[in-house]
């Protein structure tokens, strides 16, 4: 293998019912920074059946040099076999030096499948990426051992070098005026077959997703029992926040897994995080510490959560919560 035969940065955009998903724009932010360092092209691959030109142009407007849309009815939604086949086709044809995808349910399934078949290096859940200017190796930094350490991984002897990037770990690339770029629509050169049949999709109930919410109230083990949840939920509703949970809370079955914040759950970067009875295990902190404003209430003055908080209240969450709700209510009236 000759490393010099491989060039350019490619990102794997995601679409849902023809609409390009925000993670794709976040990947463009990463790609734009890397393009600066590497002086190469930043290309996008996207798989689907029916994606409007307007949607594809959006990717160019946000900084891509080329968008390659692989169009086939079998690629309408994510199915690992046809998607992997289409992606391997691109690897074969374009020899990408670097491929970035979101660390989403799609990216985290597709990328390892493709990396095995392409004998490529793959690093999961990266939070920071930069090039080694001499070797062109991508230095991929990610949390490991439950967030206790950060590890920088590289792929010295293989190409492409592939990485998945945590959703919400960076902001989406803004739309720039006056940008050129090329849209290429290709059909597949093979007949995509999927042994898996998708039968239906059950959308989340209209509860706000913790990853999309501007404010998130997170409960920890301090909740003590599931019966105490309605008080917290009412507070979250009142201030328009989504409800999140620490791993302990989910492990005990007090809230379901989609609510879990942390390395083994979701990374969140809302404008405001309010932690109630959350101790702040490293694996939890790794999933929320880049939040702009952090408030924590915990009975234990030594709780790790206070290390990342802006405001810390050492006290019983059940004594503080009613007063806090009342204070904020009065404040609202005054405004």
């Amino acid at each position: 293998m000759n490393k010099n035969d491989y060039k350019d940065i490619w990102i794997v955009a995601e679409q849902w019912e023809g609409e390009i998903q925000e993670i794709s724009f976040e990947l463009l932010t990463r790609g734009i920074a890397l393009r600066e360092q590497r002086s190469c092209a930043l290309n996008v691959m996207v798989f689907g059946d029916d994606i409007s030109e307007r949607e594809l142009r959006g990717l160019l407007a946000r900084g891509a040099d080329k968008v390659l849309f692989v169009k086939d009815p079998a690629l309408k939604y994510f199915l690992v076999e046809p998607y992997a086949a289409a992606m391997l086709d691109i690897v074969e044809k374009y020899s990408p030096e670097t491929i970035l995808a979101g660390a989403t349910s799609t990216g985290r399934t597709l990328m390892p499948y493709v990396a095995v078949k392409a004998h490529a290096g793959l690093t999961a859940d990266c939070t920071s990426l930069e090039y080694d200017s001499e070797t062109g190796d991508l230095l991929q930094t990610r949390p490991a051992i439950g967030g206790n350490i950060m590890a920088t991984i590289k792929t010295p002897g293989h190409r492409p070098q592939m990485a998945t990037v945590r959703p919400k770990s960076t902001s989406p690339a803004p739309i720039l005026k006056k940008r050129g770029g090329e849209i290429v629509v290709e059909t597949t050169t093979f007949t995509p077959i999927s042994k898996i049949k998708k039968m239906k999709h059950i959308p989340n109930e209209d509860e706000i997703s913790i990853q999309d919410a501007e404010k998130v109230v997170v409960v920890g083990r301090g909740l003590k029992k599931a019966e105490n949840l309605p008080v917290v939920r009412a507070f979250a509703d009142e201030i328009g926040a989504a409800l999140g949970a620490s791993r302990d809370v989910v492990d005990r079955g007090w809230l379901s897994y989609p609510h879990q914040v942390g390395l083994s759950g979701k990374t969140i970067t809302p404008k405001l995080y309010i932690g109630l009875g959350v101790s702040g295990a490293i694996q939890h902190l790794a999933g929320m510490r880049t939040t702009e404003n952090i408030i924590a209430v915990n009975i234990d003055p030594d709780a790790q959560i206070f290390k990342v908080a802006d405001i810390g209240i050492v006290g019983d969450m059940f004594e503080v919560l009613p007063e806090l709700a009342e204070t904020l209510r009065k404040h609202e009236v005054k405004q």
Partner: protein
Amino acid sequence: MRIIVPIKQVPETKSVRMDESTGTVIREGVESIINPLDLYAIELALQIKEKLGGEVVALTMGPPKALEALKEAVAMGVDEARLVSDRVFGGSDTWATSDALSEAIRKIGNFDLIICGERATDGDTGQVGPGIAAFLDIPVLSYVNKLAEINDDECVVHRLIERGEDVSSCGYPLLLTVVKEVSDPRLPTLRGKKKAKNLDIPVWGEKDLGLDASLLGLKGSPTRVAKIFRPKVTRECEMTVANDHTSIEAACANVAEFLTRRNLI
């Protein structure tokens, strides 16, 4: 139905301590456990076996000590176990690990389903499950949180994805990676523990798997760890103690002021 469950022995993450001077993880004295998500995979496999009959085989790659994890799986009700262990496998990244495990699975042979935990708590990559599927050239359904239907020809599962759940069906052979909602792991039984004690668990090395030596361990791994460091986590926290009515009121007023200042209310 023949089901293979690849598992991993991991350090109990909650008790992981760091050597502050070197920034490395202290492994000594840290308890080893079966990766928690793998317990859900084992439980699901056992439930399927109870429904359809057949056999469940647990498989792991690791040092000789990893036999403990396999014995625990047997104590839960797994029928057979295999350990892949050889110095040459040391330093394997997810590519080389998937390669070795898929080769071991080929050697076990004759399987319908492979069920993996979605990720391990130490490496936290979640790449080995789909990686094994790719080496075996079989489909993978990841993030499975519910087994809706299963018979000898196919199964229907729910996948937990960002916007909800996808319901998919697939025939065999098939690999599933599961998240914690999929089952409620049982505890080892006394009978299981006795069985585990007496069960002969084959240990397979490089020669048994007949793999290309250049593709094993660190040599066969495309990725390298370039650097390890401790994350910086601190910011200036304004702390107040709230233990009586007055101090609670003051603390809450302070929060309201902070939120106003930052334009959050």
